[in-house]
């Protein structure tokens, strides 16, 4: 143990022994706040366990046995508010919540928090939360989804989870969902003062307040644990209170986190407001930070020693000792005895923990990237087939159109109509998706048919839309959030990359947030342009482990792939991004005006045999040239194919359909039977999927004795998309495909 750790450890004993303890102006007694003597002692024992776990982690780190030393020292007051809430109140916790975890574990018998947290420090694969993947505070039994967040990115989903509790009640789904969250649950979410400045915090609190302001119930208690410093940067004096105490829609409460009694009392008040009135609370809790930011943080470099010492003297454990002594609950020696016995006990448990196995290979590490497939009894509980009579009622406004060929937007709208009817836990959310029917009418009539509880108009904040969906998914809903334009996903991508996608991984498959995220995107919109409405980069999603990404190029595929996506989410708990090419929403014709070749008949659910396979499709059987594309590029390639055929170049055109994971086998099987390969990618030359395709094809031919197949790609320029017709100058065109294909084929034949 380094000197500072040892000092802090010893300070407690010395201060209690000498009875030199920090004072407080709070004169509450246990009775005043409804706590018994044993309750207070129990909370103190929790605090002591949390502290010694911190110290033990640092001892272990020095021996190379622990890999995480950000601790809870100074924040152990969170034990008191843990006690104020129920173990069924789902809690999203930041990393200084050791005492909260331990206290909650006492509400559910049979928990082993000391052992489990030490396993987590040691990254042992026996760690029951993450399976050795990360030190996380989490537990399935305690309703604490694990967080790794350092940037408050867990707040949006906490907001979403809070929204979901009364939503379940409004939709009469509480009984079915009660295994996740009982009807009268609230959500607890904590974070630090430094993180409160993060835009993610601001967004989540804003969304919460925005809803509460219009009387939408939001039973959540946000606890800002204010230790006055973010790593080395001080939080301005009074900043948190000044910033939050008068926020519209939020009830602000303050408690002294150094004082268990005050914290418990205020937490109970917060509980009442959140649970009984359904209103969000901002509980501002004063804490201190002891032992620096983490084990590696040399605090003395940026902090005066007298400040460090003053903070250490304000140790919440010493405040608790004072409360115990003042109220005649324990004698000095009893207090010290508890402190030393816990220390010894933790050291002994640590000796066992370090012998436990670690993750040893990539297969073990990656085992929980995909969540487990659910048994039919679980996945099928919200799913039912809809009879013809019910469907007729749903589609009454379209009865004259149902048998006619339709464009993609209309077909997708109908598919969503059927899916909403079939899946009672499916909820859609996004900007303008309700009465307006979305920017492109893809969600038209859905809110009229299924109500505004299931088709939710959100505020204008993509981070909150995704957070809402993730939170709802934690409660067993099957969310279909919509991001209006691909460019807008980029300001919120961490909710997918850092949060939704990582949940199964860091919880060893115990938690999941299955959903289908609809994103309208890509370029080629006629008469409506500019970068933000024609963004042609989805590179940000391509390397996210476990993520599925769909991109239909036509209406028939959009219907089939949306059904597959929902099935993958429902049965396999998968996270799916459904990228819808905007420019093809209303496209009807392929070659000539009025040919209707880009329209399709609607395949009803009864006619469809939905499977979960992720496969390419192929048009044509030519062997001279294989064109590989997707989205708008596929549409252009199909135009080119006809022209090339007229020139005698026989093609087959692959539509990738699924951009992640790629149907590698299908691509190779088709492409390697052809003499030439042309990849048409409407996204940028750099970072687009064309790069992956070239690599795939090259690697597939590496071990072959035959000559490499000539391969060329056409991509968009490494540019942003400008306004108006200039956009086409940086995007692939039909003519470019024809020209490049002709050159490629002819070069080979010379």
């Amino acid at each position, binding site marked *: 143990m380094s000197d500072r750790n040892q000092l802090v450890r010893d300070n407690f004993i010395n201060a209690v022994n000498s009875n030199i303890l920090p004072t407080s102006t709070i004169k509450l007694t246990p009775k005043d706040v409804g706590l018994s*003597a044993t309750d207070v002692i129990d909370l103190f024992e929790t605090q002591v366990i949390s502290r010694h776990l911190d110290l033990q982690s640092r001892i272990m780190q020095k021996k190379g046995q622990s890999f995480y030393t950000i601790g809870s020292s100074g924040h152990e007051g969170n034990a008191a508010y843990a006690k104020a809430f129920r173990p069924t109140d789902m809690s999203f916790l930041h990393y200084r919540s050791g005492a909260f975890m331990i206290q909650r574990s006492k509400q559910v018998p*049979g928990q082993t928090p000391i052992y489990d947290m030490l396993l987590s420090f040691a990254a042992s694969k026996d760690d029951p939360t993450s399976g050795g993947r990360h030190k996380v505070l989490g537990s399935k039994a305690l309703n604490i989804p694990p967080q790794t967040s350092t940037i408050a990115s867990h707040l949006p989903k906490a907001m979403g989870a809070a929204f979901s509790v009364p939503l379940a009640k409004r939709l009469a789904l509480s009984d079915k969902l009660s295994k996740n969250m009982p009807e009268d649950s609230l959500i607890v979410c904590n974070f630090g003062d430094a993180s409160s400045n993060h835009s993610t915090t601001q967004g989540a609190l804003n969304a919460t307040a925005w809803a509460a302001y219009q009387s939408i119930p939001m039973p959540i208690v946000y606890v800002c644990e204010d230790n006055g410093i973010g790593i080395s940067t001080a939080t301005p004096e009074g900043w948190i209170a000044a910033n939050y105490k008068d926020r519209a829609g939020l009830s602000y409460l303050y408690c002294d986190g150094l004082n268990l009694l005050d914290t418990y009392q205020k937490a109970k008040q917060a509980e009442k407001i959140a649970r009984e009135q359904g209103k969000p609370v901002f509980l501002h809790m004063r804490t201190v930070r002891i032992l620096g930011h983490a084990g590696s943080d040399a605090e003395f470099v940026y902090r005066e020693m007298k400040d460090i010492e003053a903070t250490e003297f304000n140790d919440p454990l010493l405040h608790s000792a004072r409360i115990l002594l003042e109220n005649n609950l324990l*004698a000095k020696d*009893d207090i010290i*005895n508890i402190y030393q016995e816990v220390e010894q006990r933790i050291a002994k448990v640590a000796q*066992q923990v370090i012998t436990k196995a670690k993750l040893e290979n990539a297969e073990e590490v990656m085992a929980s990237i995909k969540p487990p497939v659910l048994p039919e009894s679980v996945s099928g509980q919200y799913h039912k087939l809809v009879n013809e009579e019910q469907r007729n009622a749903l589609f009454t406004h379209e009865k004259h159109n149902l048998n006619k060929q339709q464009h993609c937007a209309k077909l997708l709208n109908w598919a969503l109509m059927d899916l909403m009817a079939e899946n009672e836990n499916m909820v859609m959310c996004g900007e303008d998706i309700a009465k307006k029917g979305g920017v492109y009418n893809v969600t038209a009539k859905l809110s009229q048919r299924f109500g505004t509880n299931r088709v939710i108009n959100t505020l204008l904040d993509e981070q909150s839309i995704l957070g809402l969906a993730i939170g709802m998914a934690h409660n067993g809903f099957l969310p279909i959030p919509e991001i209006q334009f691909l460019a807008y996903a980029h300001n919120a991508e961490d909710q997918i990359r850092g949060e939704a996608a990582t949940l199964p991984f860091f919880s060893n498959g115990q938690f999941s947030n299955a959903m289908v995220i609809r994103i309208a995107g890509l370029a080629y919109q006629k008469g409506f342009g500019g970068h933000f409405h024609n963004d042609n980069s989805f590179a940000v999603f391509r390397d996210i482990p476990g993520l599925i990404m769909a991109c239909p190029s036509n209406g028939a595929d959009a219907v089939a792939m949306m059904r597959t996506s929902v099935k993958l989410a429902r049965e396999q708990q998968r996270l799916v991004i459904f990228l819808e090419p905007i420019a093809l929403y209303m496209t009807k014709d392929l070659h000539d005006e009025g040919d209707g070749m880009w329209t399709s008949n609607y395949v009803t659910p009864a006619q469809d045999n939905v499977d979960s396979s992720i496969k390419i499709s192929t048009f044509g059987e030519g062997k001279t040239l294989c064109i590989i594309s997707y989205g708008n590029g596929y549409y252009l390639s199909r135009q080119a194919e006809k022209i090339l055929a007229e020139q005698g170049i026989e093609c087959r055109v692959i539509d990738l359909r699924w951009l992640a994971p790629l149907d590698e086998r299908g691509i190779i099987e088709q492409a390697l039977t052809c003499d030439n390969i042309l990849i048409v990618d409407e996204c940028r030359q750099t970072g687009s999927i064309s790069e992956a395709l070239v690599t795939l094809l090259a690697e597939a031919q590496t071990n072959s004795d035959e000559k490499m197949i000539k391969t060329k790609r056409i991509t968009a320029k490494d540019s942003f998309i400008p306004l108006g017709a200039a956009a086409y100058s940086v995007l692939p065109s039909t003519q470019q495909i024809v020209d490049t294909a002709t050159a490629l084929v002819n070069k080979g034949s010379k």
Partner: protein
Amino acid sequence: MTTAHSTKNLTSNLTNKAKKRVVVICPGRGTYNKEELGYLQRLHSDKAELIQVIDNFRQQQGQLTISELDAKEQYSMRLHTAGENASALIYGCAIADFQAINKDKYDIVAITGNSMGWYIALAAAGALTPEAAIELINTMGSMMTDGIVGGQMIYPITDDNWLIDHEVVRNIERWLIEVNKKEGCAVYISINLGGYTVFGGNKMGLKALELLLPVVQDRYPMNLFNHAAFHTPLLNDTAIKAQSLLSTDLFNQPQIPLIDGLGKIWQPQSTDVKALYNYTLSTQVVTRYNFSKAIEVAVKEFAPDQLIILGPGSTLGGGVAQSLINQQWLDMSSKSDFIALQKQTPFILAMGLAEQRKLVL
């Protein structure tokens, strides 16, 4: 509570590092068998005062004293296994064994027990004085004198390596649902006992379940003679009666941490005595006793150097070992690992086995 708790002797377990940290496990019913006849006479003739408290109480109740029962020339199933005798007898042997543990060699860091062993654990931890302990144990043991409510039946759920056979467990869950659908049948899991499941139920239910359970090792499913359906809702009336007969005043703060049949830890200073009373005379009487979980919590949260199982008998050793193996404690993953470890440096010390007993004294 208005006064400060008594101060524990700080030197007891903090200064002597040579001491081994142990968790003590108290036995339940069915542990005083033919071989144990004379246990008190043979091993505890030096603890007359302790036994006297028990005998006095029983004399006042007009019951045979445990000294008399222990001194019988012949073991009688009818006499020695009847609840009103067996409970007090087992308690007497166990608490005497507890006293016999060499406290200079061993620090007792926690105490747990199986089923009735929970009452003994309370006594050993000081939550019940010797007088209170015999009152409670004898009262609970005598609850069935007017006729035993239901019964218990034991069935193994491990394979030859002492690893839980999950298919058997799944089948059991299915069969329980099936049996409970039948009119007049009520069966529950009464105890999770390491590699065994103890069922508690009414006669009809147990009979119906017995027909579904494949016979294994020529003995199982085995009905436990003279056992009532403890730890099941069938004992609701018994729990109510127990609370009317036994006062909360019988209970004190424990002096040593206790681990109950739900795996909850009761710390000496923070134990709510009323809650302990409620757990003991209500919760655990009518809900499953998860002894396997208690062992899991004991090793994971206290990391003892050894486990001491009090006598009489040593039958609990198997259940404890199986619980350890299924947690892969000390890297044990099979029966043979356990046997090898026991040979080398025994982790479990059963005081009912002469060889291991002498290590404890």
